[in-house]
């Protein structure tokens, strides 16, 4: 019986990239459906009525949403090249770091990107505290998953791309090779790994997009702080 696997994504969604990587690492054939998030298709709204977001994996007609949920589904359905470890304690740790990545690291890096002046300095201090935990966690390992890329690498992997884009735009180092040597090294190794390397969105388009996001963030913060 043929498997029908479809991935609804946008060209830039870093959360959807996690799923692209997972599918490719496991050698799963799939069809991509690109969504314009400013004009969501009826199908997207039907498949993810709760959040109305990408990524959505549709497997034999059945939709799964939320990147962490999709990753676990993929790992349980296609057992080759496992993403999560087997041991329950190691699995709990992997889930912990994935959640930490999204809840804390990403938010704190974003704050460094959009804030200015003193607020940016403070945001950088907060981001460094979070990044130091990752630096500690990767000690002694090439990837967070060990010798090869695993679940935590796929979740945190967007940092390997987004951080350098943010740094280029704001002219500020977030992951300094001297201060976070292991994390810096992981970012290089991850970004250059086969499959990962071949699937980054076009850098020039990303720079344009993130510059626009920064401009919008600055505009909205100055309009809310100015008196009328």
């Amino acid at each position: 019986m043929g498997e029908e696997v479809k991935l609804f994504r946008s060209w830039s969604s870093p959360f959807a990239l996690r799923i692209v990587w997972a599918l490719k690492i496991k050698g799963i054939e799939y069809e991509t459906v690109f969504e314009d998030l400013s004009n969501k298709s009826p199908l997207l709204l039907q498949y993810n009525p709760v959040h109305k977001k990408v990524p959505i994996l549709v497997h034999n007609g059945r939709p799964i949403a939320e990147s962490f949920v999709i990753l676990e589904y993929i790992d349980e359905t296609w057992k080759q090249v496992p993403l999560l470890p087997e041991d329950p304690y190691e699995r709990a740790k992997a889930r912990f770091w994935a959640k930490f990545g999204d809840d804390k690291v990403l938010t704190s890096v974003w704050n460094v990107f959009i804030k200015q002046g003193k607020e940016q300095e403070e945001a950088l201090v907060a981001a460094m505290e979070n990044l130091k935990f990752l630096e500690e966690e990767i000690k002694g390992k090439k990837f967070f998953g060990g010798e090869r890329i695993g679940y935590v690498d796929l979740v945190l992997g967007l940092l390997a791309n987004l951080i350098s884009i943010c740094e280029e735009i704001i002219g500020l180092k977030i992951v300094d090779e001297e201060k976070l040597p292991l994390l810096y090294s992981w970012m290089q190794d991850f970004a250059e790994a086969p499959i990962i390397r071949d699937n980054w969105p076009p850098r020039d388009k990303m720079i344009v997009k993130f510059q626009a996001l920064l401009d919008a963030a600055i505009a909205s913060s100055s309009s809310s702080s100015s008196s009328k």
Partner: protein
Amino acid sequence: MADEIALLSTWPSMFGMRVRVALAEKGLKYEYREEDLRNKSPLLLLMNPVHKKIPVLIHNGKPISESMIIVEYIDEVWNHKSPLLPTDPFQRAQARFWADYVDKKLYDIGKKIIWSTKEEEQETGKKEFLECLKLLEGELGDNPYFGGQNFGFVDVSLVTFSCWFHTFESYGNFSIETECPKLVAWTKRCLEKESVSSSLADPHKIHDFASGVRKRFAIE
């Protein structure tokens, strides 16, 4: 060798209660340690250095943090009875999705109702809160539990909020039972289970607790 299990938590925490429910479902004995969050114990800081939060489960000396991650760990390790997640990957994905929805939405929205000093924010909170509960009610459908015929992962994630309902209702001035009767019926069904009734705090004590916090922060 017997398992050594300890739980660091605080009695009003709906997140800590999730772990208690899961441990009770599995019939596990454990040491409970009440934390004072204004004076965190060295053990808590050692076991959860990243977030310094409860709940933390310590199993044979190894810590696990984040309530639903802990619940999933408990389900995987003690898989001999009362499975909380189904075996089918698609159904597991559905369960994870809805538990994640509860996590993403209810706590932050609920905070607006209880702790906000602005009426507009409180009203928005109330509206959003009921929308979430109604969506969850729809997902429950005609099943006795979110897990279908059996109490499961999503039930654990949501049921512990129910002892806070009285507090939400009191500060938000609304009746959850009127708006979401099926959901309230579900909470009562869950409370018939020993694992739930022995793990949830008394709603009136929660209300007193919230009232105390509000006074301390000069909200009332």
